[in-house]
């Protein structure tokens, strides 16, 4: 069985998550490029975002 998530719903959820971490997508992208994330949670967020092509 496959679960689907709507793109807009996923983007909204990601924005809310980043807001909670006081982090912008640009900052997260920069941390990903450096391979040096400010926190475990930020690294997990990037994994999810890049896996679902929400970046």
């Amino acid at each position, binding site marked *: 069985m496959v*679960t689907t*998530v709507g793109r807009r719903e996923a983007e909204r959820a*990601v924005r*809310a998550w980043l807001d909670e971490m006081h982090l912008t997508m640009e900052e997260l992208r920069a941390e990903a*490029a450096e391979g040096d994330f400010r926190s*475990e949670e930020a690294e*997990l967020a990037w*994994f999810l975002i890049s*896996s679902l092509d929400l970046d």
Partner: protein
Amino acid sequence: LTEPLDVQATHFAVALNDLLNRTVASEVTLRSTRRDDRTDAALVGLDLGEGIRPQTFPVATPHMGCLHLLVYFAVRLDPEGVHMAVSKSIFGVYGVPGPSGGDPLVRYDYNRDMDGYPSAHIQVHGESQALGRLNALANRTKRLALSKLHFPVGGKRFRPCLEDLLEFLIVEGFVAPVSEGWQAAINNYRSTFHRRQLLAAIRRDPDTARQAFAADPTHQSSKAAP
């Protein structure tokens, strides 16, 4: 006949559930999740929870309460559009429900498109006196932390698999196996992983495979036999 990614990813999730529930977990159900507008990429793991965030699941430990595992695979079809390939994976061992709750003990990461760091690496969260001394001697403006180091492990084809991590947790006494058949389950699924990786390596480098066959006297004699 090529199976759609949805089908291949679902089979993969079913196999992972069987592995996990015969080794370290009880009634864990990983599934394939994808965007409703994309059929070429999916995430295999626990259902993303409230706010679409990765989730951990508990595993029983004999002496120290609970550990929590994070297991996700990002999957896509290979460049030929035939075989499902793992583009990224992440396995984490947490002391508390993570990942928001704290740092893991260890994380096994794989990202086939990683630039600058090994595509397969382990990150260990802990303190190192040796690293502390090196930081002091080098008078670094930015101190190296053990958890920020990406220890290389085997590369794209020969990286550690989930089965290796589960075996590590059991043999080191972190986790009590949930069935007597845990080692057989790990061995079987790990063999499947190794065979799949070897097939992929052969597909990408058939000349080396031919050289190996040509140099193998056993293979030569079995070919010559009637």
